């Protein structure tokens, strides 16, 4: 199923909003969980089964741990580490899942077209698009650097945490700067940055699924806010 990028952006916004407000009653938790399930279901519809399964497992296990095995009275190092870890996962994972889904399933062209529809200035749209374009590059570069470190047996930086970090970051920064420079040279020779209004080959249209999801998200948010702050 293809969703409109505008729906996806709205989803990111709503999920982030709800993540920032803590759920205090079982009813609020129910709303939160149903909102978290939406990107997971969408991932399954996009045939990204393994990622959906991983996110679902990670989130579910953190939830179960949090509610059945840990309480405010838990003591000891492991319990306190777990509380911190599970707390963060339970609180923020929905936003991460949504962001992952959006970045993975949105083409740069769709994103640019969506920005134009929303009358975002080209400058901002292009910068955001480049950020999206850079994630896979960073991943690629990072994995080659990791290989090189394994080759040289310096994975752990000789036991020095700072060096461990330095050995990864320095080559990564150098290559990202180089790639970025060549990338922008290539882009401007193809006319990026002109005063002409950019056009877009992708024509966006909101479908029934888009309206359904947006309505559901909006209603859920309103109910959440009303029940949390006004009742």
């Amino acid at each position, binding site marked *: 199923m293809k969703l409109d990028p505008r729906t996806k952006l709205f989803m990111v916004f709503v999920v982030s909003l709800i993540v920032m407000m803590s759920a205090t009653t079982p009813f609020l938790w129910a709303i939160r969980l149903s909102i978290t399930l939406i990107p997971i279901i969408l991932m399954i519809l996009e045939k990204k089964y393994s990622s959906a399964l991983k996110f679902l497992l990670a989130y579910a296990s953190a939830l179960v741990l949090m509610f059945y095995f840990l309480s405010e009275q838990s003591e000891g190092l492991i319990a306190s580490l777990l509380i911190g870890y599970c707390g963060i996962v339970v609180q923020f994972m929905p936003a991460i899942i949504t962001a992952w889904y959006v970045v993975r399933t949105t*083409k*740069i*062209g769709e994103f*640019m077209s969506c920005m134009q529809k929303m009358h975002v200035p080209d400058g901002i749209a292009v910068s955001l*698009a*480049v950020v*999206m*374009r850079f994630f*896979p*590059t960073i991943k*690629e*570069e990072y994995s*080659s*650097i990791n*290989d*090189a*470190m*394994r*080759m*040289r*047996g*310096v994975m752990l930086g000789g036991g020095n945490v700072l060096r461990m970090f*330095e*050995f990864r970051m*320095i*080559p990564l920064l*150098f*290559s990202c700067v*180089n*790639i970025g420079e*060549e*990338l*922008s*040279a*290539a*882009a*401007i*020779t*193809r*006319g*990026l*940055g*002109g*005063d*002409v*209004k*950019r*056009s*877009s*080959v*992708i*024509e966006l249209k909101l479908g029934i699924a888009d309206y359904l999801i947006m309505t559901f998200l909006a209603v859920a948010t309103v109910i959440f806010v009303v029940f949390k702050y006004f009742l």
Partner: protein
Amino acid sequence: MSIVELENVNFQYKGSKDGSLNNINLNIEKGQTVLLCGASGSGKTSIIRLINGLIPHYYSGELEGNITVAGHDVRKTELHELAGTVGTVFQNPRSQFFSVDTDGEIAFGPENIGLEPKEIKARLNDVVAEMDLDDLLGRSIFDLSGGQKQRIACASVAALLPDIILLDEPSSNLDFDSIELLRGTILEWKRQGKTIIISEHRLWYLKDAVDRVIYMENGVMAKEWTGEEFKGLNEEEVKSYKLRPIVLEEELIRDIRGESTSSFCDVESNIELKDFFFSYKTRPYLLFKKKFKESDGELLNLNIPYLKIPKGKVIGLVGPNGTGKSTFLRCLCGLEGDCKGAIVSDGKIYKARQRLKICYLVMQDVNHQLFTDSVKSEVMLSMKDEDEKRCDEILESLGLLEYKDTHPMALSGGQKQRVAIASAIASGAEILLFDEPTSGLDYSHMEKVGELLNELASTGASVIVSTHDPELISECCDYVLGIKHGKAVYLKENKKL
């Protein structure tokens, strides 16, 4: 009618002498195909950048003289105004893509100049039909091979319908068959009457396409040939200009494509490789990994049950892209942990992680491999017991001693490569692996790499070098090992020059 005019042009980059230009006067007629050749840093790329306007609008420096391209005064024209007139295919396929998907990339240029969606779709269809790209549509750029990326790069330039097309070392990362395709594209553009300017080290694929050849030396246009004259140059003359060969031997071409009919020759002192199987595809089991066997056949990206390779020699690893050369190197040196193969050398068996200790892979992009803040500490990092004397010896032998305290990232590409080799030697590895060390190098740098590989072998190390450069093979390889579809298909002795 001249479409490109450079008049008394002088240029020097800010803070660097490399690639500066001296008194360049060049007129290029509409429809001509011009080749720029010469050593790295001789100013080829700078001329390309003058014509597409990246100099002075993107790379700044001191510029004198007049540059006119299709009636535009480049110095006074904004870069985006040149977009429909001049198109550029760059060297590195990794960094010239704006989109992540192929369709979006081809549409990117036309979108920038604000064409109607209908018109863009029509152009997309034209370009796809013309360049036969159907099978590449709708794919992620990150899943394409270097050759496929370069085809998309050409298409995305062509979609803007420029009259002038510039190519800056476009074949650097390509294998033989991809270069043939690139040649086809260039010939098609030539047929359409486009003006084409190519800066290139590899010359054999262009000899029938070019009308003029300009030889650059230290920022000066030192020599010019017509296409006919250029084809007629003999081997000696080409060598005296430090250019890569214009004509390749048939046998070398067969070798490089992995299509030699030879089988496995006998080697006396050898290293044995056993049970090298590997697959990138998803594993059949969830919790533990399947152990691969020879009979898994098609599933495997690497399938070498047994192979004997000569010891203390330089072995050229050849075959088309994507058929297992890099996989072979990665598995051999132990980077792919799932590959359970064993190396037997001098009666000792090295398995899994131990392979990392006797092998060292010098990667294609050496920038990924340098971590510290000085050349000296880079070499020391590889040593089990830090030994300053040994470090100096190694640096001396590679001509790097004077750069001992320099930051590796401040060195030139060739020097960085030597620092990586120095760390390889310091690690005490007896099997040294090189992944395409000469792609994008000019003739004299390639010659130097060849000499270096020979020296390494003469100190007893076994050197395996994957390459698409026939020149490098005839320069330094004692043996050629062909890989195809993940299998070793031949090992033959090679006559060195």
